[in-house]
């Protein structure tokens, strides 16, 4: 969930009303948001960097508000206020309008060349005319772009936004891609020109920009936008040019979004212009811009598309579990910025989805908004009549029953990790990693998560190692899943439920572990015997001490091993006493 931080007093001023913290918290809840924290820049600095750094920082009260992940229209003060005012029925949702240039002139044009195809093929653009910034509006404009970059733009990988002072540049603009050595311009906040290659090394140490370098770093061509005079507007998704940077005095803004995902680029552009067209001389109008594709196709942006969905009041009532008239449901939806009216045919409701609500992609989203506006706490709780008979998963049922009796037999249950290092399941058990049939993880952050375990034994031995101060003997067990590669499964691997137990004492206690096997078999109602019963037979296994290991057979099928652990295994797990163990597959007993 993104968190939006707004100045409380500014928010109340825009809402035309003051609230206590409790009242505002309540309002947020009703609107489906959460007032996460009440703080100030100073408090944040004190918490994060200590009192000294915070000296002189602002103590203006900030509200931090958690916003649902796909509500991009609530990521700035302007959008929040608009949403809340409409919800409180103090304001009618504005209609966003795309307009042609006022003086009958040509729209701004962005031409995409085919070189962009390999790196970042999409671009959209729009113009905000005659905008009036104040310090707060300007900051909010910058902050919204950052929020969009972090959310819908997926840290600029999908979409990158560039905003420019239109009066410093002249179209048509060209969106192309060039080798890094051939791109040369003065970027924002720098005093001289750099080549793109130089910039990439310059930004390696930039705490903010270094996170975006990987997006194009290894590409032969970097995306770049020029104006008709060869001035660089931006090198997306990294940095804008200094020449066209916007300021408090900027009146006309050229906005471009370059992207690998066109849908997200359109939504992002719509968000920027719908939020800030409020400050244009003609509020909520946006001047169109043309985008020409390499194949000659021409598109006009921003789309600012309104869509109408028709659904019945009955649908909403049945899905939410309420009983409201179509009219009242239409009113609920209108309060959520989904202008709705009853169409006259039965209880059908026409719901208009504005360009700000890109999150509404299905009738179920409309239903959810109706529920929010109705108030979740007002919905009557009811028990579904769904009649079903419960069943346990057989392997879990068996596990539950065995666990109880293993504890009754004097063994204590351990709970160890399913992920471990290669060393744990191979070297430390004196096995070769290739013979383990282990599933390997491609992106472990540490060695502790290299593989899924193929045996429960390492976990138990590590548990003993962490509890060496406990009185001897230590008797531990675990019944849980290991993971083995298995070509016959759709994903190429399967779980295997195993029972493992260890006995750790001054003497190996093979007879104790052997006795446990006998007890387990007694519990499973398998009698000793060669054919229909179970028996053990001397075996060699590198994990065990030579001559002290046996393979366990049940009904003629090998189900595991028991024995005294090899001294090297014991020392590799940082243990000092002899130890015997049993490890069996319990799935044959289902």
């Amino acid at each position: 969930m993104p968190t939006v931080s707004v100045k409380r007093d500014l928010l109340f001023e825009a809402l035309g009303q003051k609230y206590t913290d409790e009242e505002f918290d309540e309002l947020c809840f009703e609107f489906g948001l959460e007032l996460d924290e009440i703080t100030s820049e100073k408090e944040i600095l004190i918490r994060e960097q200590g009192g000294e750094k915070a000296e002189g920082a602002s103590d203006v009260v900030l509200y931090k508000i958690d916003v649902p992940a796909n509500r991009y229209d609530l990521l700035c003060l302007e959008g929040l206020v608009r949403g809340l005012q409409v919800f409180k029925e103090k304001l009618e949702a504005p209609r966003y309008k795309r307009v042609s240039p006022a003086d009958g002139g040509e729209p701004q044009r962005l031409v995409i060349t085919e070189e962009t195809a390999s790196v970042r093929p999409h671009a959209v653009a729009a113009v905000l005319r005659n905008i009036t910034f104040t310090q707060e509006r300007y900051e909010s404009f910058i902050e919204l772009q950052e929020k969009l970059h972090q959310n819908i733009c997926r840290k600029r990988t999908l979409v990158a936004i560039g905003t420019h002072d239109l009066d410093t540049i002249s179209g048509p603009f060209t969106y192309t891609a060039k080798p890094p050595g051939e791109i040369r311009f003065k970027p924002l906040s720098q005093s001289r020109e750099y080549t793109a290659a130089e910039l990439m090394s310059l930004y390696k140490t930039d705490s903010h920009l270094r996170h975006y370098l990987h997006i194009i770093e290894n590409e032969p061509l970097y995306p770049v936008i020029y104006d008709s005079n060869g001035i660089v507007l931006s090198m997306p998704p990294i940095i804008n040019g200094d020449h066209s940077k916007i300021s408090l005095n900027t009146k006309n803004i050229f906005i471009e979004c370059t992207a690998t995902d066109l849908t997200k680029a359109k939504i992002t552009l719509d968000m920027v212009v719908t939020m800030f067209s409020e400050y244009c001389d003609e509020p909520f109008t946006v001047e169109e811009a043309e985008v020409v594709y390499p194949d000659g196709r021409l598109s006009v942006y921003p789309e600012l598309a309104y869509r109408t969905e028709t659904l019945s009041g009955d649908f909403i009532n049945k899905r939410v579990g309420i009983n409201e008239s179509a009219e009242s449901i239409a009113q609920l939806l209108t309060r959520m910025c989904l202008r709705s009216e009853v169409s006259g045919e039965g209880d059908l409701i026409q719901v208009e989805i504005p360009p700000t609500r890109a999150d509404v992609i299905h009738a179920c989203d409309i239903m959810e908004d109706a529920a929010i506006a109705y108030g979740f706490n007002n919905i009557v709780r009811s028990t579904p009549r769904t009649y079903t008979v419960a069943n346990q998963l057989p392997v879990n049922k068996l596990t539950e029953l065995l666990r109880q009796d293993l504890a009754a037999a004097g063994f204590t249950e351990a709970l160890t990790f399913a992920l471990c290092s290669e060393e744990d399941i191979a070297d430390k058990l004196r096995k070769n990693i290739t013979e383990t049939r282990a599933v390997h993880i491609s992106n472990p952050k540490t060695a502790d998560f290299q593989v899924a375990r193929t045996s429960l034994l390492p976990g138990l031995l590590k548990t003993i190692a962490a509890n060496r101060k406990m009185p001897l003997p230590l008797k531990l067990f675990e019944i849980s899943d290991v993971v083995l590669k298995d070509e016959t499964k759709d994903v190429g691997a399967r779980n295997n439920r195993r029972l493992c137990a260890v006995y750790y004492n001054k003497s190996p206690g093979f007879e104790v572990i052997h006795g446990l096997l006998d007890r387990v078999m007694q519990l499973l109602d398998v009698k000793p015997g060669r054919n229909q019963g179970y028996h053990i037979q001397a075996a060699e296994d590198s994990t065990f001490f030579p001559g002290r290991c046996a393979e366990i057979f049940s009904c003629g099928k090998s189900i595991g091993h028991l024995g005294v652990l090899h001294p090297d295994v014991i020392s590799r797990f940082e243990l000092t006493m002899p130890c015997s163990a049993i490890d069996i597959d319990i799935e044959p007993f289902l």
Partner: protein
Amino acid sequence: MADTGLLEALLRLLEKVDGGIDSQDVAADLGVDHQLIVGAVKSLQALGEVISAEQKSSKRWELTGEGREIAEQGSHEARVFNAIPDEGLPQNELMKMPSGKVGFSKAMSNKWIRLDKAHEGGPRVFKTVETIEDTVRDKLQLVQKGLSAKLEDKEKNELKKRKLLSEVTVKSYWITKGSSFSTTITKQETELTPEMIASGSWKEKKFKPYNFEAMGVAPDCGHLHPLMKVRTQFRQIFLEMGFTEMPTNNFIESSFWNFDSLFQPQQHPARDQHDTFFISDPALAHEFPQDYLERVKQVHSEGGYGSQGYKYDWKIEEAQKNLLRTHTTAVSARMLYKLAQQKFTPVKYFSIDRVFRNETLDATHLAEFHQIEGVVADYGLTLGNLMGILHQFFTKLGLKKWVEVGNSGVFRPEMLLPMGLPEGVSVIAWGLSLERPTMIKYGINNIRELVGHKVNLQMVYDSPICRLDS
């Protein structure tokens, strides 16, 4: 138990006195070491109310080593006097005696002897009196007999100065008769024996009382892990509510079932390397229900089923990527798909099993945890039903503030309809972690103390049974 004879001797002494007696006096009377009497007192106390004894401390005079020697052999001056024959003794010979020096000067100052310095053959010592009275020895012998009270303080202090006496603190007991005083002793039995039961002799015996303040002996047993005890209770709750357990024994899952089938777009941050463990071997899943996969692709890239879709280029290569499942909802998806392949019947499903996140680890986050999940599929389920069933579930848990620990919702049509579930069927679901409520229940702050090999086994041994609703 002290010797019975001694105990009875003590009791007989006690019988004769009104009031009580001091254990020191008993020791003196019976002529035994005081420590033996102390032992006897303790043994008698253990028998019940035969005697009562109160510890007290008193000062008393005792002979030093030198004092005892003098009490036996006489004072140094007396020994010097007695060593001198009538014809006298050369001074140098007298000085060779062990008591020579001290005895000589004392005897001189007592005027028992004289020194003739001018005697031919060297200085010679002569008696000056016929007999002497060795008062030092007499006094010390009095003290030795325990009769130090007969000496004056001045005398005792003088002897103390000569390091013949010392004053010591003595602990003793003031012994009085108990409520069941008797001069004979019945030996108390420690435990009932089979012989006593057989012979009936237990009726005559007195039994040593138990110390009910002491802890018992810990039973020799194994223990279940607290997290697993809580898991058992959650399973129980679901079973009581009629939910069937899903087969979640497949940690390795394809991105298709873990994300795509749930209508999670392929660019979603949860599918990032930073959040999910991907598998390098076996890297890809190789088998999918083909026509279902096509429908999933369509709903993502173009929409359909009443949805706008996400309108992006859906790639099979992304869907094939194997991973460690990030939620058990992957299994719910498989189950719902399976359900859709037959004539629809309402179902209630649950699972509690491990899920994996490639997250940054801290005191409450591990790379793996147990997810609890409940799913209900039926015609016409409402949000009111979801809230109702959550209320029932969390009431059984005894948790009032359930919003804090879980997530819930209604599965999207874009997930359900491509599976082939009928249009009117809704599926409500909720999930929470097993670890969080367990940590709250058992008051554990660091998840590593609960899960994994670093667990403190003592905590496992000591953890109470799990009753979620109390």
